[in-house]
């Protein structure tokens, strides 16, 4: 193991992240100015290049806070910082090793059958002693509640308690890995491969520490570190071997990925990973929480986008429900619903995510020796990477995340934890209210002025903003008709249709292939957008471009309604470079109509490539007007809004 790993350490690309991700129990020796430095640098540097010099072809890679800061932080610290793993290791090795007798745990599950109670070995007796002492009435009081009349409430007897809570103690002892799993508690990495990976990481850190120590102190330091290395190396092998004869099955089961916070935050994937880069994809897969099986036949041009086998990811994620310690339940639920497609629509996804973040912040308490804003950012990063695995982030969500992170980074260090949390919660609330809800109201106010009596309004798909406009115009008593254009496979327009009809608005429902006919009657086209990019390109549900183009050809004004928080400084000229691929089966199969599902048998044909795009880009030429919370603007003015909007986000 060691000789193989050793050369990697030198060239390990993760080294560049050293500056930002300090080890969990870093001591006070961590340079102070690193703390004071970071909050200001990342968000600011985030903005400047795009705002100032924006060439039309430049597609600036979206910035990630972690990436940036790691780049921004000078590499001068390592010697200082790298000392800390060493300290940690030497500290751990002090923990009394003799407190566990490995033989006790030889076969706890098989060994303790009831018949053997009389003839049990000294080991179990000791443990039953522990259990006996733990046999107390539970802290819940037995009486005094309002009780159901019939059955007397029962006292709970605690018969078994988990007493060893120190993480990683068992590892050193090298006993059976089943017990390993429990002993580790919060830091748990129960599975075989992961254990060894963690060990490898520990080894690597120790080696690095050794090097640093050698540099700093000369030979004395390296001697200590080497002994640490030897120890960890031995420890890592022992559980693996024991595990093998313990249970094949169990190891399979526990093979589910569980990555600790520390691992995850180091590996936050780049939001726009190029999925045709096989080596990076492999890496990403290794750390992914959601198992991702990629579809075999992908369309040539879209190889850089992730596309996964549909129907395999959800059950797999569901299985891990209780095992994902690093993800807050609220975040998990949101991710699950993204993955299952229960929530869609930019605003709703963004709000759901922010609310989940709020919940997780509410229950958050920063560990000792850690600054809240750093640890919370790391936590948030792990949540975000989890959400990305569930479904690629929309641009609106990306902006919201950026906002939350900047808020966390800008929290004054003097605030107490509870103050900081309430501060954050109210900030997020404010974001939801001001940037989404109020923005929608302002958009409605503006847009309603564009609806006149006798109008025929066309909309595509189901946009929350457009729906509110139509409902509001109807409430004002305007007489108009609505044409809802819809398209397979999502058929989102049907829900909108149902709701509009419920309000008594007269509607026409038509599919996208009939749009050229109906456009002749239409006087205005209202469209929603997932994002508006700096060159005025509207990035929206696939099909929008088609509608806008037809409208443009027929001379019908196209009005795009989009909240300003969805604007992005990126420039995009086509729908290829950034997009999302949906489930290709959704196109091939028609639900509920078995008789026309004869394409099923050729779905795996090698010459067949199915493309289910989710978004497309509408060139600004086809857009007459964009209505935002800052007013009605032509698409050419988007960069101004982006600049102004970002400025106030940073400055507040």
């Amino acid at each position, binding site marked *: 193991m060691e000789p193989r790993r050793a050369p990697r350490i030198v060239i390990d690309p993760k080294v560049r992240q050293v500056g930002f991700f300090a080890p969990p129990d870093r001591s006070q020796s961590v340079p102070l100015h690193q703390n004071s430095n970071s909050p200001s640098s990342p968000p600011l540097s985030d903005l400047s290049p795009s705002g100032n010099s924006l060439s039309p072809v430049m597609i600036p890679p979206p910035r990630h806070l972690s990436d940036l800061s790691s780049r921004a932080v000078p590499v001068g610290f390592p010697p200082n910082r790298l000392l800390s793993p060493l300290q940690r290791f030497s500290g751990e090795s002090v923990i009394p090793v003799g407190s566990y007798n490995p033989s006790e745990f030889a076969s706890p599950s098989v060994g303790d059958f009831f018949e053997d109670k009389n003839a049990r070995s000294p080991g179990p007796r000791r*443990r039953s002693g522990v259990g006996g002492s733990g046999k107390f009435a539970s802290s819940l009081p037995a009486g005094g509640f309002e009780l159901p009349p019939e059955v007397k*409430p029962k006292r709970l007897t605690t018969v078994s308690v988990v007493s060893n809570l120190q993480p990683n103690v068992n590892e050193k002892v090298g006993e059976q890995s089943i017990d390993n799993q429990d002993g580790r508690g919060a830091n748990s990495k129960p599975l075989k491969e992961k254990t060894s990976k963690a060990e490898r990481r520990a080894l690597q850190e120790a080696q690095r520490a050794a090097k640093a120590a050698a540099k700093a102190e000369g030979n004395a330091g390296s001697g200590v570190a080497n002994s640490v290395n030897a120890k960890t190396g031995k420890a890592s092998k022992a559980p693996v071997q024991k595990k093998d004869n313990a249970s094949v099955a169990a190891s399979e089961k*526990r093979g589910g990925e569980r990555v600790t916070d520390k691992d995850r935050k180091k590996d936050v994937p780049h939001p726009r990973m190029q999925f045709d880069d096989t080596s990076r994809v492999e890496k990403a897969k290794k750390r992914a929480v959601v198992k991702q099986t990629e579809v075999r036949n992908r369309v040539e041009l879209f190889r850089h986008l992730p596309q996964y086998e549909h129907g395999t990811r959800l059950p797999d994620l569901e299985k891990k429900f209780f095992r994902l310690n690093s993800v807050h339940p609220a975040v998990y639920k949101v991710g699950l*619903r993204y993955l299952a497609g229960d929530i869609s629509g930019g605003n709703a996804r963004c709000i759901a995510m922010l609310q989940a973040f709020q919940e997780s912040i509410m229950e958050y308490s920063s560990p000792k020796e850690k600054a809240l804003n750093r640890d919370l950012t790391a936590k948030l990063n792990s949540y975000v990477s989890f959400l990305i695995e569930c479904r690629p982030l929309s641009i609106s969500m990306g902006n919201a995340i950026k906002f939350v992170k900047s808020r966390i980074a800008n929290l004054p260090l003097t605030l107490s934890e509870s103050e900081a949390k309430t501060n954050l919660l109210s900030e997020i609330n404010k974001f939801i209210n001001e940037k989404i809800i109020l923005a929608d109201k302002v958009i409605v106010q503006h847009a309603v002025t564009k609806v006149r009596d006798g109008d025929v309004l066309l909309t595509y798909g189901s946009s929350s903003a457009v729906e509110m406009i139509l409902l509001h115009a109807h409430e004002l008593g305007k007489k108009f008709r609505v044409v809802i254009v819809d398209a397979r496979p999502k058929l989102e327009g049907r829900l909108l249709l149902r709701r509009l009809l419920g309000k008594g608005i007269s509607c026409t429902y038509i599919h996208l292939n009939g749009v050229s006919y109906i456009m002749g009657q239409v006087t205005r086209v209202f469209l929603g957008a997932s994002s508006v990019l700096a060159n005025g390109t509207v990035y929206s549900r696939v099909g929008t471009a088609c509608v806008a183009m037809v409208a443009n050809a027929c001379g019908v004004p196209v009005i795009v309604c989009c909240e300003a928080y969805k604007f992005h400084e990126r420039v995009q000229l086509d729908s290829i470079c950034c997009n999302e691929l949906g489930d290709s089966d959704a196109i091939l199969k028609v639900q509920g109509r078995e008789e026309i599902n004869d394409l099923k048998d050729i779905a795996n044909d090698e010459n067949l490539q199915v493309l289910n795009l989710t978004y497309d880009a509408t060139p600004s030429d086809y857009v007459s007007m964009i209505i935002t919370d800052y007013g009605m603007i032509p698409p050419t003015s988007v960069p101004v809004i982006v600049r102004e909007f970002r400025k106030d986000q940073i400055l507040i």
Partner: protein
Amino acid sequence: MDFQVVVLAGGSSKKLLPLVSKDVPKSLLPVANRPVLSYVLELLEQSNLKDLIVVVEGEDTDGLIENWISEAYVDRLHVQVAAVPEEVGTAGALRAITHHLTASDILVVSGDLVCDISPGAVAAAHRRHDAVVTAMFCSVPVTGPPESGSSGGKDKTKKPGCYNIVGLDLTEQFLLYIAAGMEVEKDIKVQKSILSAVGKMEIRADLMDAHLYAFKRSVLQEVLNQKQTFRSLKQDVLPYLVKTQLRSEILLNGAQAEENGNEKDAFSNNKVMLSQLLANASTPSFHELYALGPNGFAPAERKIHKCCVYLASKSKYCARLNSIQAFSDINRDVIGDASHISGCSFSVHNNVIHPSAVLGSKTTVGPQCMLGEGSQMGDKCSVKRSVIGRHCRIGSNVKVVNSVIMNHVTIGDGCSIQGSVISSNVQLQERAVLKDCQIGAGFVVTAGSEYKGESLARK
């Protein structure tokens, strides 16, 4: 993840006589030389659920189970045991510990479940749909392998009766109708309102209730409180929840009123908009469409709740130890087809022989067998597809086929055992022949006797 787990480890089931007794409650019956309860506990442990409440029926069995858990799981699980009087039923058992339930959702698992389906999947489905109850169903196991013709007779008598009629929606996510057990022969009544709301319903009889439920705590407590007559989760609570899912006036008063109240109190226009935005964005199930009413806006708000199902895939193993037939089936499967559950490593001959076991000369132990610690076998024995417990003494020329032999059993020379279950401390004298028998603990089978299809127990 804010889930609390309740394991219902029932007392001594009548169906399992004579195998169960005061000393051996149902949940401690050995499956591949491990109490059946350990399978559930380990399944939960694998899912990282370490804080459990085990409810035991009957005061006397309580102590046994407590002792066993405290020995086997100290330092591994945090287990609390509550004893309830016998015959209160599953609902009664939950009622007894209702005030100990605090988490927002409760996972209720039957203690006799042997399966490899992650409870997390059920919990996730539950959370995703915000359901009131989520039940896990699995396909009915094929009882007995084809070659064991000996047990075929039993199959025929047991099989009818364990049919469940389950109605699902087309996406197989929601539970629309459930009727358990004997009512198969009668007509089944399906509510019109549910049918018209769903459109299509799939009625299936090939599903088995795995007795793994996720409940919303507030709802469960309310139902248990209001319906004091409810005794069984499966036969009373679940059908009640399913029946009332489109008109849950009584039900969600507690839970929903709270939420609604909050929304109304707030009065803030923003909040209403917010919730509407979220509601509009999510793909509605038939429940929500029904609540909206035919035109999208119902005159009065209709209250609904969702009952979900989680269908385990066919490749997963799932069985309940609720009959003698099931007992021998599970024992056979755990060392055979579903060997990954047993947690033992199988030898190259596909069997498990404890290193301390002693085999005589010319004794063969076939594949899919298990031989417990300290057991001794004489010469020229043959063991096929059987489980033999700890410290058994088996003489020479003994044939054991398709059987389960528990611990400390003494078997004389020349015995032949086929398709039988032999409890602990049984003594078989020479040349006894047993076929399809169940023998209770401590029984002595006299020399040369022959039994077929009988159940013997000490008087």
